[in-house]
Protein backbone atom coordinates (compact mmCIF):
# COMPACT_ATOMS: atom_id res chain seq x y z
CA UNK A 1 0.00 0.00 0.00
CA UNK A 2 1.25 3.49 -0.74
CA UNK A 3 2.56 5.59 2.12
CA UNK A 4 -0.17 8.21 1.54
CA UNK A 5 -3.02 5.68 1.56
CA UNK A 6 -1.68 4.04 4.69
CA UNK A 7 -1.39 7.38 6.48
CA UNK A 8 -5.01 8.29 5.84
CA UNK A 9 -6.22 4.85 6.82
CA UNK A 10 -4.40 4.81 10.12
CA UNK A 11 -4.45 8.41 11.33
CA UNK A 12 -6.80 11.28 12.03
CA UNK A 13 -5.99 14.97 12.40
CA UNK A 14 -3.06 14.67 10.07
CA UNK A 15 -0.52 17.47 10.33
CA UNK A 16 1.19 18.30 7.06
CA UNK A 17 4.01 20.81 6.83
CA UNK A 18 5.07 22.72 3.71
CA UNK A 19 8.49 24.26 3.39
CA UNK A 20 10.68 25.56 0.58
CA UNK A 21 13.61 23.40 -0.50
CA UNK A 22 16.97 25.13 -0.15
CA UNK A 23 15.78 27.53 2.55
CA UNK A 24 17.04 28.97 4.85
CA UNK A 25 20.30 27.24 3.88
CA UNK A 26 20.74 25.63 0.47
CA UNK A 27 21.49 22.24 2.03
CA UNK A 28 18.89 22.31 4.82
CA UNK A 29 16.25 20.43 2.81
CA UNK A 30 16.67 16.92 4.23
CA UNK A 31 17.66 18.09 7.71
CA UNK A 32 14.33 19.90 8.04
CA UNK A 33 12.45 16.81 6.85
CA UNK A 34 14.17 14.65 9.45
CA UNK A 35 13.53 17.06 12.31
CA UNK A 36 9.90 17.50 11.25
CA UNK A 37 9.30 13.76 11.32
CA UNK A 38 10.93 13.49 14.73
CA UNK A 39 8.76 16.36 15.98
CA UNK A 40 5.51 14.72 14.92
CA UNK A 41 4.74 15.83 11.37
CA UNK A 42 2.68 13.24 9.49
CA UNK A 43 3.20 14.42 5.92
CA UNK A 44 5.68 16.70 4.17
CA UNK A 45 5.29 19.01 1.20
CA UNK A 46 8.65 20.15 -0.09
CA UNK A 47 8.36 23.17 -2.35
CA UNK A 48 10.68 23.47 -5.33
CA UNK A 49 11.10 27.19 -5.91
CA UNK A 50 9.98 29.14 -8.99
CA UNK A 51 10.84 32.67 -10.05
CA UNK A 52 7.19 33.70 -10.55
CA UNK A 53 5.04 32.05 -7.87
CA UNK A 54 1.68 33.70 -8.57
CA UNK A 55 -0.32 31.67 -6.03
CA UNK A 56 2.01 32.56 -3.17
CA UNK A 57 2.07 35.42 -0.72
CA UNK A 58 5.16 37.36 0.44
CA UNK A 59 6.58 34.71 2.84
CA UNK A 60 6.87 31.91 0.29
CA UNK A 61 7.88 34.34 -2.47
CA UNK A 62 10.78 35.46 -0.29
CA UNK A 63 11.87 31.93 0.68
CA UNK A 64 11.67 30.87 -2.99
CA UNK A 65 13.78 33.81 -4.10
CA UNK A 66 16.42 33.17 -1.43
CA UNK A 67 16.56 29.50 -2.36
CA UNK A 68 16.98 30.27 -6.07
CA UNK A 69 19.60 32.92 -5.31
CA UNK A 70 21.51 30.27 -3.36
CA UNK A 71 21.52 28.04 -6.41
CA UNK A 72 18.56 25.69 -6.00
CA UNK A 73 17.40 23.80 -9.09
CA UNK A 74 15.21 20.72 -9.53
CA UNK A 75 18.30 18.74 -10.47
CA UNK A 76 20.04 19.74 -7.25
CA UNK A 77 16.91 19.01 -5.22
CA UNK A 78 16.78 15.43 -6.49
CA UNK A 79 20.47 15.05 -5.56
CA UNK A 80 19.72 16.36 -2.07
CA UNK A 81 16.86 13.87 -1.73
CA UNK A 82 18.97 10.87 -2.82
CA UNK A 83 19.16 9.46 0.72
CA UNK A 84 15.79 10.80 1.85
CA UNK A 85 14.33 7.37 2.51
CA UNK A 86 17.23 6.40 4.80
CA UNK A 87 16.21 9.21 7.11
CA UNK A 88 12.51 9.90 6.62
CA UNK A 89 9.65 7.40 6.57
CA UNK A 90 6.51 9.61 6.40
CA UNK A 91 5.00 10.44 2.98
CA UNK A 92 6.65 13.24 1.05
CA UNK A 93 5.16 15.35 -1.73
CA UNK A 94 6.89 17.82 -4.00
CA UNK A 95 5.06 21.06 -4.64
CA UNK A 96 5.84 23.67 -7.27
CA UNK A 97 4.90 25.34 -10.53
CA UNK A 98 4.63 23.61 -13.87
CA UNK A 99 7.36 25.34 -15.90
CA UNK A 100 10.37 23.85 -14.07
CA UNK A 101 8.71 20.43 -14.41
CA UNK A 102 8.22 20.93 -18.17
CA UNK A 103 11.86 21.92 -18.61
CA UNK A 104 13.04 18.93 -16.55
CA UNK A 105 10.71 16.76 -18.64
CA UNK A 106 7.53 15.35 -17.13
CA UNK A 107 8.62 11.75 -17.60
CA UNK A 108 12.09 12.43 -16.14
CA UNK A 109 10.53 14.33 -13.27
CA UNK A 110 8.21 11.44 -12.36
CA UNK A 111 11.04 8.90 -12.60
CA UNK A 112 13.29 11.05 -10.40
CA UNK A 113 10.49 11.36 -7.82
CA UNK A 114 10.11 7.59 -7.68
CA UNK A 115 13.86 7.04 -7.44
CA UNK A 116 14.23 9.20 -4.33
CA UNK A 117 11.00 7.97 -2.73
CA UNK A 118 8.73 10.95 -3.26
CA UNK A 119 5.08 9.86 -3.11
CA UNK A 120 3.30 12.52 -5.12
CA UNK A 121 3.11 16.08 -6.37
CA UNK A 122 1.14 19.27 -6.11
CA UNK A 123 1.45 21.47 -9.21
CA UNK A 124 -1.07 24.28 -8.71
CA UNK A 125 -0.84 25.73 -12.22
CA UNK A 126 -1.16 22.41 -14.03
CA UNK A 127 -4.84 22.42 -15.02
CA UNK A 128 -7.02 19.35 -14.79
CA UNK A 129 -7.69 19.26 -18.55
CA UNK A 130 -3.99 19.26 -19.44
CA UNK A 131 -3.22 16.76 -16.69
CA UNK A 132 -5.87 14.41 -18.00
CA UNK A 133 -4.85 14.75 -21.63
CA UNK A 134 -1.08 14.65 -21.32
CA UNK A 135 0.24 13.75 -17.89
CA UNK A 136 -2.11 11.42 -16.03
CA UNK A 137 -0.70 8.31 -17.73
CA UNK A 138 2.88 9.26 -16.85
CA UNK A 139 2.04 10.08 -13.21
CA UNK A 140 -0.02 6.97 -12.64
CA UNK A 141 2.37 4.77 -14.58
CA UNK A 142 5.01 5.77 -12.04
CA UNK A 143 2.67 5.28 -9.10
CA UNK A 144 2.70 8.98 -8.18
CA UNK A 145 -0.25 10.78 -6.64
CA UNK A 146 -1.22 14.14 -8.08
CA UNK A 147 -2.98 16.40 -5.61
CA UNK A 148 -5.56 18.91 -6.88
CA UNK A 149 -6.76 22.09 -5.20
CA UNK A 150 -10.36 23.01 -4.47
CA UNK A 151 -11.55 26.51 -3.44
CA UNK A 152 -14.87 27.81 -2.08
CA UNK A 153 -15.70 28.84 -5.66
CA UNK A 154 -15.10 25.40 -7.20
CA UNK A 155 -18.39 23.96 -8.45
CA UNK A 156 -19.79 20.69 -7.09
CA UNK A 157 -19.55 19.13 -10.54
CA UNK A 158 -15.88 20.06 -10.81
CA UNK A 159 -15.13 18.76 -7.31
CA UNK A 160 -16.54 15.38 -8.30
CA UNK A 161 -14.36 15.41 -11.41
CA UNK A 162 -11.31 16.28 -9.30
CA UNK A 163 -12.20 13.48 -6.90
CA UNK A 164 -12.29 11.05 -9.81
CA UNK A 165 -8.82 12.11 -11.02
CA UNK A 166 -7.22 12.17 -7.55
CA UNK A 167 -5.46 9.30 -5.86
CA UNK A 168 -4.13 10.59 -2.57
CA UNK A 169 -6.10 13.40 -1.04
CA UNK A 170 -7.79 16.64 -2.09
CA UNK A 171 -6.32 19.93 -0.98
CA UNK A 172 -9.09 22.24 0.24
CA UNK A 173 -8.21 25.91 0.23
CA UNK A 174 -9.83 27.66 3.13
CA UNK A 175 -10.52 30.67 0.92
CA UNK A 176 -9.60 31.92 -2.52
CA UNK A 177 -6.36 33.59 -1.54
CA UNK A 178 -2.63 33.54 -2.02
CA UNK A 179 -0.69 31.70 0.69
CA UNK A 180 0.07 33.17 4.09
CA UNK A 181 -3.15 34.85 5.12
CA UNK A 182 -4.99 34.06 8.34
CA UNK A 183 -7.81 31.56 8.29
CA UNK A 184 -11.04 33.20 9.26
CA UNK A 185 -13.68 30.58 9.67
CA UNK A 186 -16.78 32.53 8.80
CA UNK A 187 -20.22 31.06 8.31
CA UNK A 188 -19.49 30.90 4.60
CA UNK A 189 -16.30 28.91 5.13
CA UNK A 190 -18.07 26.51 7.49
CA UNK A 191 -20.85 25.86 5.04
CA UNK A 192 -18.25 25.27 2.28
CA UNK A 193 -16.37 22.77 4.45
CA UNK A 194 -19.64 21.07 5.43
CA UNK A 195 -20.77 20.95 1.80
CA UNK A 196 -17.59 19.09 0.90
CA UNK A 197 -17.85 16.77 3.90
CA UNK A 198 -21.39 15.91 2.78
CA UNK A 199 -20.27 15.07 -0.74
CA UNK A 200 -18.80 11.75 0.48
CA UNK A 201 -15.76 12.00 -1.77
CA UNK A 202 -13.68 8.88 -2.33
CA UNK A 203 -10.51 10.77 -1.46
CA UNK A 204 -9.66 12.15 1.98
CA UNK A 205 -9.32 15.93 2.33
CA UNK A 206 -6.77 18.27 3.88
CA UNK A 207 -7.39 21.94 4.57
CA UNK A 208 -4.67 24.43 3.80
CA UNK A 209 -3.94 28.16 3.50
CA UNK A 210 -4.08 30.24 6.65
CA UNK A 211 -3.44 27.56 9.30
CA UNK A 212 -1.03 29.12 11.81
CA UNK A 213 -2.07 28.05 15.32
CA UNK A 214 -3.28 25.04 17.29
CA UNK A 215 -6.70 26.67 17.31
CA UNK A 216 -6.97 27.01 13.51
CA UNK A 217 -5.48 23.54 13.08
CA UNK A 218 -8.09 21.97 15.40
CA UNK A 219 -10.85 23.89 13.65
CA UNK A 220 -9.72 22.60 10.25
CA UNK A 221 -9.58 19.02 11.58
CA UNK A 222 -13.28 19.21 12.45
CA UNK A 223 -14.04 19.31 8.73
CA UNK A 224 -11.24 17.34 7.11
CA UNK A 225 -8.71 14.56 7.70
CA UNK A 226 -6.11 17.10 8.63
CA UNK A 227 -4.53 20.41 7.77
CA UNK A 228 -1.51 21.86 6.04
CA UNK A 229 0.75 24.55 7.47
CA UNK A 230 3.03 26.47 5.12
CA UNK A 231 3.81 30.15 5.48
CA UNK A 232 3.64 30.14 9.30
CA UNK A 233 6.26 27.37 9.41
CA UNK A 234 8.52 28.98 6.81
CA UNK A 235 8.35 32.24 8.76
CA UNK A 236 9.38 30.45 11.97
CA UNK A 237 12.53 28.86 10.51
CA UNK A 238 15.70 30.26 12.04
CA UNK A 239 18.93 29.67 10.13
CA UNK A 240 20.97 30.04 13.34
CA UNK A 241 19.03 27.37 15.19
CA UNK A 242 17.41 25.27 12.51
CA UNK A 243 16.48 22.18 14.55
CA UNK A 244 15.51 24.27 17.56
CA UNK A 245 13.20 26.49 15.52
CA UNK A 246 11.53 23.47 13.88
CA UNK A 247 10.98 21.76 17.24
CA UNK A 248 9.68 24.88 18.96
CA UNK A 249 7.21 25.44 16.15
CA UNK A 250 5.99 21.85 16.20
CA UNK A 251 5.47 21.90 19.98
CA UNK A 252 2.64 24.37 19.47
CA UNK A 253 0.75 21.69 17.57
CA UNK A 254 1.97 18.49 19.16
CA UNK A 255 2.82 19.80 22.63
Amino acid at each position, binding site marked *: MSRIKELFQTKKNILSIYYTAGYPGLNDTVQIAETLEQSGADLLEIGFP*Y*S*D*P*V*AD*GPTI*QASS*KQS*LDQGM*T*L*KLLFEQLKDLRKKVSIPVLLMG*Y*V*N*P*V*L*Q*FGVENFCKACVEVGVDGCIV*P*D*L*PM*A*EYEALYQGIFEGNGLSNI*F*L*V*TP*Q*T*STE*RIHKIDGLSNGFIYL*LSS*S*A*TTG*QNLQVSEGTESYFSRIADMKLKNPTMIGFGIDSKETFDKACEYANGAIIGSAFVKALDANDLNGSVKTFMQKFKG
Partner: protein
Amino acid sequence: MNYFVNEKGYFGDFGGAYIPEMLYPNVEELRQNYLKIIGDESFQKEFHQLLKDYVGRPSPLYLAKRLSQKYNANIFLKREDLNHTGAHKINNTIGQILLAERLGKKRIIAETGAGQHGVATATVCALRGLECVVYMGEIDIQRQAPNVARMKMLGAKVVPATSGSKTLKDATNEAMRDWINNPIDTHYIIGSVVGPHPYPDMVAIFQSIISEETKKQLIEQTGNDQPDYVLACVGGGSNAMGMFYHFIDDEKVKLIAVEAGGRGVDTGFSAATTFLGKEGVLHGSRSILMQTEDGQVVEPHSVSAGLDYPGIGPQHAHLFKTGRGEYVSITDDEALQAGLLLTQMEGIIPAIESAHALAYLEKMSFKGGENVVVCLSGRGDKDMDTYMKYFNL
Protein backbone atom coordinates in the same frame (compact mmCIF):
# COMPACT_ATOMS: atom_id res chain seq x y z
CA MET B 1 -2.97 25.89 -41.51
CA ASN B 2 -5.11 27.37 -38.75
CA TYR B 3 -3.44 30.41 -37.23
CA PHE B 4 -6.28 31.20 -34.85
CA VAL B 5 -7.43 29.75 -31.56
CA ASN B 6 -9.06 26.30 -31.46
CA GLU B 7 -11.91 25.17 -29.23
CA LYS B 8 -9.47 24.07 -26.53
CA GLY B 9 -7.88 27.50 -26.28
CA TYR B 10 -4.70 26.64 -28.21
CA PHE B 11 -2.92 28.18 -31.18
CA GLY B 12 -1.13 25.10 -32.48
CA ASP B 13 1.08 23.97 -29.58
CA PHE B 14 0.65 27.22 -27.65
CA GLY B 15 -1.91 28.77 -25.34
CA GLY B 16 -4.18 26.97 -22.91
CA ALA B 17 -4.99 28.11 -19.40
CA TYR B 18 -2.23 27.13 -16.95
CA ILE B 19 -3.76 28.71 -13.88
CA PRO B 20 -4.19 27.71 -10.26
CA GLU B 21 -7.65 26.54 -9.24
CA MET B 22 -8.21 29.87 -7.45
CA LEU B 23 -8.38 31.60 -10.84
CA TYR B 24 -10.41 28.93 -12.59
CA PRO B 25 -13.92 30.34 -11.92
CA ASN B 26 -12.94 33.85 -13.13
CA VAL B 27 -11.22 32.65 -16.26
CA GLU B 28 -13.94 30.11 -16.99
CA GLU B 29 -16.64 32.77 -16.63
CA LEU B 30 -14.78 34.86 -19.16
CA ARG B 31 -14.18 31.92 -21.51
CA GLN B 32 -17.85 30.99 -21.55
CA ASN B 33 -19.04 34.53 -22.18
CA TYR B 34 -16.50 36.54 -24.17
CA LEU B 35 -17.51 35.58 -27.71
CA LYS B 36 -21.20 35.81 -26.92
CA ILE B 37 -20.83 39.28 -25.37
CA ILE B 38 -18.49 40.62 -28.06
CA GLY B 39 -20.77 39.29 -30.80
CA ASP B 40 -23.81 40.97 -29.32
CA GLU B 41 -25.17 43.81 -31.42
CA SER B 42 -25.52 46.28 -28.53
CA PHE B 43 -21.91 45.59 -27.51
CA GLN B 44 -20.64 46.18 -31.04
CA LYS B 45 -22.61 49.39 -31.30
CA GLU B 46 -21.32 50.79 -28.02
CA PHE B 47 -17.74 49.64 -28.71
CA HIS B 48 -17.58 51.24 -32.15
CA GLN B 49 -19.29 54.41 -30.97
CA LEU B 50 -16.67 54.86 -28.24
CA LEU B 51 -13.82 54.03 -30.62
CA LYS B 52 -15.10 56.73 -32.95
CA ASP B 53 -16.15 59.54 -30.61
CA TYR B 54 -13.89 58.93 -27.61
CA VAL B 55 -10.73 57.35 -29.01
CA GLY B 56 -10.82 59.24 -32.31
CA ARG B 57 -10.89 56.29 -34.69
CA PRO B 58 -10.35 55.47 -37.44
CA SER B 59 -6.71 56.33 -36.91
CA PRO B 60 -5.16 57.68 -40.13
CA LEU B 61 -3.08 55.58 -42.48
CA TYR B 62 -0.42 58.05 -43.45
CA LEU B 63 1.83 57.70 -46.49
CA ALA B 64 5.17 58.95 -45.18
CA LYS B 65 6.57 60.52 -48.36
CA ARG B 66 10.09 61.41 -47.28
CA LEU B 67 10.56 58.07 -45.58
CA SER B 68 9.20 56.35 -48.70
CA GLN B 69 11.75 58.15 -50.84
CA LYS B 70 14.58 57.17 -48.52
CA TYR B 71 13.67 53.48 -48.51
CA ASN B 72 12.43 53.21 -52.11
CA ALA B 73 9.01 51.80 -51.13
CA ASN B 74 5.61 53.18 -50.16
CA ILE B 75 5.86 53.40 -46.38
CA PHE B 76 2.47 53.76 -44.71
CA LEU B 77 2.23 54.51 -41.01
CA LYS B 78 -0.83 53.30 -39.11
CA ARG B 79 -1.22 56.17 -36.67
CA GLU B 80 -2.19 54.50 -33.40
CA ASP B 81 -0.13 57.24 -31.74
CA LEU B 82 -3.00 59.64 -32.48
CA ASN B 83 -5.47 57.69 -30.36
CA HIS B 84 -6.73 59.17 -27.11
CA THR B 85 -4.10 58.41 -24.41
CA GLY B 86 -1.41 58.08 -27.07
CA ALA B 87 -1.24 54.44 -28.06
CA HIS B 88 -3.13 51.38 -29.32
CA LYS B 89 -3.69 50.17 -25.74
CA ILE B 90 -7.04 51.98 -25.45
CA ASN B 91 -8.67 49.78 -28.14
CA ASN B 92 -8.40 46.84 -25.76
CA THR B 93 -9.32 48.63 -22.53
CA ILE B 94 -12.51 50.03 -24.10
CA GLY B 95 -13.48 46.53 -25.19
CA GLN B 96 -12.66 44.93 -21.84
CA ILE B 97 -14.39 47.56 -19.70
CA LEU B 98 -17.63 47.08 -21.67
CA LEU B 99 -17.23 43.33 -21.21
CA ALA B 100 -16.53 43.70 -17.47
CA GLU B 101 -19.67 45.79 -17.06
CA ARG B 102 -21.74 43.13 -18.79
CA LEU B 103 -20.26 40.52 -16.42
CA GLY B 104 -21.38 42.68 -13.48
CA LYS B 105 -17.86 43.46 -12.24
CA LYS B 106 -17.34 46.46 -9.97
CA ARG B 107 -13.59 46.59 -9.61
CA ILE B 108 -10.89 46.64 -12.30
CA ILE B 109 -7.25 45.64 -11.94
CA ALA B 110 -4.43 45.89 -14.46
CA GLU B 111 -0.68 45.52 -14.81
CA THR B 112 1.47 48.03 -16.61
CA GLY B 113 5.06 48.35 -17.82
CA ALA B 114 5.62 51.75 -19.40
CA GLY B 115 2.35 52.93 -17.97
CA GLN B 116 0.50 53.14 -21.33
CA HIS B 117 -1.82 50.25 -20.53
CA GLY B 118 -2.21 51.52 -16.97
CA VAL B 119 -3.23 54.96 -18.25
CA ALA B 120 -5.59 53.41 -20.83
CA THR B 121 -7.19 51.31 -18.08
CA ALA B 122 -7.45 54.20 -15.59
CA THR B 123 -9.00 56.27 -18.39
CA VAL B 124 -11.83 53.84 -19.17
CA CYS B 125 -12.43 53.30 -15.43
CA ALA B 126 -12.86 57.05 -15.00
CA LEU B 127 -15.12 57.07 -18.05
CA ARG B 128 -17.38 54.37 -16.59
CA GLY B 129 -17.01 55.18 -12.88
CA LEU B 130 -15.36 51.92 -11.81
CA GLU B 131 -12.74 51.38 -9.11
CA CYS B 132 -9.28 50.90 -10.62
CA VAL B 133 -6.08 49.40 -9.19
CA VAL B 134 -2.94 49.30 -11.36
CA TYR B 135 0.11 47.20 -10.50
CA MET B 136 3.39 48.62 -11.71
CA GLY B 137 6.98 47.56 -11.05
CA GLU B 138 8.77 49.75 -8.56
CA ILE B 139 11.52 50.46 -11.09
CA ASP B 140 9.00 51.37 -13.80
CA ILE B 141 7.26 53.72 -11.37
CA GLN B 142 10.54 55.59 -11.05
CA ARG B 143 11.30 55.69 -14.79
CA GLN B 144 7.74 56.57 -15.93
CA ALA B 145 6.75 59.24 -13.41
CA PRO B 146 4.44 61.26 -15.75
CA ASN B 147 2.29 58.20 -16.48
CA VAL B 148 2.06 57.41 -12.75
CA ALA B 149 0.78 60.94 -12.18
CA ARG B 150 -1.74 60.58 -15.01
CA MET B 151 -3.12 57.35 -13.52
CA LYS B 152 -3.42 58.96 -10.10
CA MET B 153 -5.14 62.01 -11.56
CA LEU B 154 -7.57 59.65 -13.30
CA GLY B 155 -8.44 58.23 -9.89
CA ALA B 156 -6.56 54.93 -10.05
CA LYS B 157 -4.61 53.46 -7.17
CA VAL B 158 -1.08 52.62 -8.35
CA VAL B 159 0.46 49.76 -6.36
CA PRO B 160 4.21 49.13 -6.66
CA ALA B 161 5.34 45.57 -7.43
CA THR B 162 8.39 45.04 -5.27
CA SER B 163 9.23 41.41 -6.08
CA GLY B 164 11.70 40.03 -8.64
CA SER B 165 13.04 42.55 -11.15
CA LYS B 166 10.32 45.04 -10.12
CA THR B 167 9.18 45.49 -13.75
CA LEU B 168 6.33 44.34 -16.01
CA LYS B 169 6.59 40.60 -15.31
CA ASP B 170 6.37 41.22 -11.58
CA ALA B 171 3.51 43.68 -11.96
CA THR B 172 1.66 40.90 -13.84
CA ASN B 173 2.35 38.46 -10.97
CA GLU B 174 0.95 40.96 -8.47
CA ALA B 175 -2.17 41.57 -10.55
CA MET B 176 -2.77 37.81 -10.75
CA ARG B 177 -2.37 37.57 -6.96
CA ASP B 178 -4.90 40.37 -6.53
CA TRP B 179 -7.35 38.48 -8.77
CA ILE B 180 -6.87 35.30 -6.74
CA ASN B 181 -7.69 37.25 -3.59
CA ASN B 182 -10.73 38.99 -5.15
CA PRO B 183 -12.44 36.28 -7.15
CA ILE B 184 -16.00 37.59 -7.33
CA ASP B 185 -16.28 41.30 -8.09
CA THR B 186 -13.03 41.98 -9.96
CA HIS B 187 -12.12 41.90 -13.65
CA TYR B 188 -8.47 41.79 -14.65
CA ILE B 189 -7.80 43.83 -17.81
CA ILE B 190 -4.67 42.21 -19.23
CA GLY B 191 -2.95 44.65 -21.57
CA SER B 192 -1.42 42.31 -24.09
CA VAL B 193 -2.12 39.12 -26.03
CA VAL B 194 -0.74 37.07 -23.14
CA GLY B 195 -2.27 35.25 -20.17
CA PRO B 196 -4.59 32.26 -19.96
CA HIS B 197 -7.15 31.54 -22.67
CA PRO B 198 -9.33 33.47 -23.59
CA TYR B 199 -7.16 36.57 -23.05
CA PRO B 200 -4.80 36.19 -26.03
CA ASP B 201 -7.73 35.70 -28.39
CA MET B 202 -9.92 38.35 -26.76
CA VAL B 203 -7.24 41.06 -26.76
CA ALA B 204 -6.37 40.21 -30.38
CA ILE B 205 -10.04 40.61 -31.35
CA PHE B 206 -10.21 44.06 -29.72
CA GLN B 207 -6.93 45.14 -31.35
CA SER B 208 -7.91 43.72 -34.75
CA ILE B 209 -9.59 47.06 -35.49
CA ILE B 210 -6.07 48.19 -36.51
CA SER B 211 -5.82 45.85 -39.50
CA GLU B 212 -9.54 46.07 -40.26
CA GLU B 213 -9.19 49.82 -40.83
CA THR B 214 -5.83 49.44 -42.58
CA LYS B 215 -7.35 47.22 -45.27
CA LYS B 216 -10.09 49.74 -46.01
CA GLN B 217 -7.64 52.62 -46.04
CA LEU B 218 -5.27 50.80 -48.37
CA ILE B 219 -8.11 50.23 -50.84
CA GLU B 220 -8.95 53.94 -50.73
CA GLN B 221 -5.35 55.04 -51.12
CA THR B 222 -3.85 52.40 -53.41
CA GLY B 223 -6.78 50.43 -54.76
CA ASN B 224 -5.31 47.25 -53.26
CA ASP B 225 -5.87 45.95 -49.74
CA GLN B 226 -2.89 43.57 -49.89
CA PRO B 227 0.31 45.25 -48.75
CA ASP B 228 3.60 43.47 -49.39
CA TYR B 229 4.73 43.81 -45.78
CA VAL B 230 3.28 44.74 -42.43
CA LEU B 231 5.63 45.50 -39.55
CA ALA B 232 5.04 45.92 -35.83
CA CYS B 233 7.02 45.75 -32.62
CA VAL B 234 6.45 42.87 -30.18
CA GLY B 235 6.73 42.84 -26.39
CA GLY B 236 3.78 40.68 -25.43
CA GLY B 237 2.56 41.52 -28.91
CA SER B 238 -0.82 43.25 -28.81
CA ASN B 239 -0.24 45.98 -31.40
CA ALA B 240 1.43 43.44 -33.68
CA MET B 241 -1.48 41.02 -33.37
CA GLY B 242 -3.91 43.85 -34.11
CA MET B 243 -1.83 44.87 -37.12
CA PHE B 244 -1.49 41.27 -38.40
CA TYR B 245 -4.97 39.99 -37.61
CA HIS B 246 -6.83 40.49 -40.88
CA PHE B 247 -3.72 39.70 -42.95
CA ILE B 248 -2.84 36.42 -41.26
CA ASP B 249 -4.77 34.19 -43.64
CA ASP B 250 -3.50 36.07 -46.69
CA GLU B 251 -0.11 34.42 -47.09
CA LYS B 252 0.98 36.88 -49.77
CA VAL B 253 1.28 39.54 -47.06
CA LYS B 254 4.57 39.17 -45.20
CA LEU B 255 4.26 39.69 -41.45
CA ILE B 256 7.33 41.06 -39.69
CA ALA B 257 7.45 41.18 -35.90
CA VAL B 258 10.24 43.22 -34.36
CA GLU B 259 11.49 42.21 -30.92
CA ALA B 260 13.61 44.28 -28.57
CA GLY B 261 17.23 43.19 -28.90
CA GLY B 262 18.28 45.43 -26.00
CA ARG B 263 22.04 45.98 -26.00
CA GLY B 264 22.36 43.05 -28.41
CA VAL B 265 20.87 39.55 -28.53
CA ASP B 266 24.02 37.93 -27.13
CA THR B 267 24.89 40.48 -24.45
CA GLY B 268 22.70 39.13 -21.66
CA PHE B 269 20.71 42.38 -21.78
CA SER B 270 17.99 41.63 -24.30
CA ALA B 271 14.29 40.94 -24.63
CA ALA B 272 14.44 39.12 -27.99
CA THR B 273 12.24 36.23 -26.93
CA THR B 274 12.22 34.11 -30.09
CA PHE B 275 16.02 34.27 -30.27
CA LEU B 276 16.68 33.56 -26.60
CA GLY B 277 13.58 31.71 -25.42
CA LYS B 278 12.33 28.16 -25.26
CA GLU B 279 8.85 26.72 -25.03
CA GLY B 280 7.35 26.83 -21.57
CA VAL B 281 4.59 28.29 -19.42
CA LEU B 282 4.43 31.88 -18.19
CA HIS B 283 1.49 33.89 -16.84
CA GLY B 284 -1.02 31.19 -17.63
CA SER B 285 -0.22 30.12 -21.15
CA ARG B 286 2.15 27.87 -22.99
CA SER B 287 4.36 29.97 -25.23
CA ILE B 288 7.99 30.87 -25.82
CA LEU B 289 9.80 32.53 -22.94
CA MET B 290 13.27 33.45 -21.82
CA GLN B 291 14.27 31.02 -19.08
CA THR B 292 17.13 29.14 -17.50
CA GLU B 293 17.73 25.44 -18.09
CA ASP B 294 15.91 24.89 -14.78
CA GLY B 295 12.80 26.70 -16.03
CA GLN B 296 13.25 29.91 -14.06
CA VAL B 297 12.18 33.03 -15.93
CA VAL B 298 15.06 35.26 -16.99
CA GLU B 299 14.93 39.04 -16.52
CA PRO B 300 14.74 40.77 -19.89
CA HIS B 301 16.24 44.11 -20.87
CA SER B 302 15.04 46.76 -23.28
CA VAL B 303 15.36 50.54 -23.38
CA SER B 304 11.60 50.58 -23.92
CA ALA B 305 9.58 49.56 -20.88
CA GLY B 306 6.74 48.36 -23.10
CA LEU B 307 8.91 45.67 -24.72
CA ASP B 308 10.69 44.69 -21.51
CA TYR B 309 8.92 41.33 -21.16
CA PRO B 310 10.44 37.80 -21.17
CA GLY B 311 7.70 36.16 -23.25
CA ILE B 312 5.46 36.65 -26.28
CA GLY B 313 1.78 35.85 -26.67
CA PRO B 314 0.92 32.26 -27.67
CA GLN B 315 -0.44 33.27 -31.09
CA HIS B 316 2.90 34.91 -31.85
CA ALA B 317 4.68 31.75 -30.75
CA HIS B 318 2.51 29.87 -33.24
CA LEU B 319 3.15 32.34 -36.09
CA PHE B 320 6.87 32.07 -35.31
CA LYS B 321 7.00 28.29 -35.12
CA THR B 322 4.99 27.79 -38.30
CA GLY B 323 7.08 30.38 -40.13
CA ARG B 324 4.01 32.49 -40.99
CA GLY B 325 5.60 35.47 -39.28
CA GLU B 326 9.20 36.60 -39.51
CA TYR B 327 10.57 37.49 -36.06
CA VAL B 328 13.55 39.81 -36.01
CA SER B 329 15.27 42.01 -33.45
CA ILE B 330 16.47 45.60 -33.20
CA THR B 331 18.86 46.96 -30.58
CA ASP B 332 18.26 49.88 -28.20
CA ASP B 333 20.62 52.07 -30.25
CA GLU B 334 19.01 51.23 -33.59
CA ALA B 335 15.54 51.96 -32.18
CA LEU B 336 16.54 55.33 -30.73
CA GLN B 337 18.18 56.35 -34.03
CA ALA B 338 15.03 55.35 -35.92
CA GLY B 339 12.97 57.43 -33.51
CA LEU B 340 15.11 60.47 -34.27
CA LEU B 341 14.96 59.79 -38.00
CA LEU B 342 11.14 59.69 -38.06
CA THR B 343 11.01 62.84 -35.97
CA GLN B 344 13.27 64.78 -38.32
CA MET B 345 11.93 63.42 -41.62
CA GLU B 346 8.21 63.33 -40.88
CA GLY B 347 7.71 65.48 -37.79
CA ILE B 348 6.43 62.58 -35.69
CA ILE B 349 8.06 61.63 -32.38
CA PRO B 350 7.34 57.90 -31.96
CA ALA B 351 7.26 55.82 -28.80
CA ILE B 352 10.54 53.91 -28.50
CA GLU B 353 8.53 50.69 -28.75
CA SER B 354 7.22 51.70 -32.19
CA ALA B 355 10.67 52.95 -33.19
CA HIS B 356 11.83 49.31 -33.09
CA ALA B 357 9.48 48.51 -35.98
CA LEU B 358 10.63 51.59 -37.92
CA ALA B 359 14.28 50.65 -37.39
CA TYR B 360 13.83 47.39 -39.25
CA LEU B 361 13.13 49.31 -42.50
CA GLU B 362 16.89 50.05 -42.54
CA LYS B 363 17.57 46.31 -42.81
CA MET B 364 15.13 45.57 -45.61
CA SER B 365 15.75 46.07 -49.31
CA PHE B 366 13.04 47.10 -51.71
CA LYS B 367 12.76 46.99 -55.48
CA GLY B 368 10.57 50.09 -55.45
CA GLY B 369 6.80 50.26 -55.43
CA GLU B 370 6.16 47.81 -52.59
CA ASN B 371 3.48 48.79 -50.12
CA VAL B 372 4.72 48.57 -46.55
CA VAL B 373 2.60 49.27 -43.47
CA VAL B 374 4.31 50.01 -40.17
CA CYS B 375 2.22 50.13 -37.01
CA LEU B 376 3.11 53.33 -35.21
CA SER B 377 1.73 51.97 -31.97
CA GLY B 378 2.35 54.96 -29.70
CA ARG B 379 3.64 58.48 -29.40
CA GLY B 380 6.94 59.42 -27.85
CA ASP B 381 5.89 61.98 -25.23
CA LYS B 382 6.41 59.46 -22.43
CA ASP B 383 9.93 58.73 -23.73
CA MET B 384 11.26 62.29 -23.84
CA ASP B 385 13.51 61.66 -20.84
CA THR B 386 15.17 58.73 -22.59
CA TYR B 387 15.52 60.60 -25.89
CA MET B 388 16.92 63.66 -24.07
CA LYS B 389 19.56 61.66 -22.25
CA TYR B 390 20.55 59.64 -25.31
CA PHE B 391 20.82 62.53 -27.75
CA ASN B 392 21.90 65.19 -25.21
CA LEU B 393 18.92 67.35 -26.20
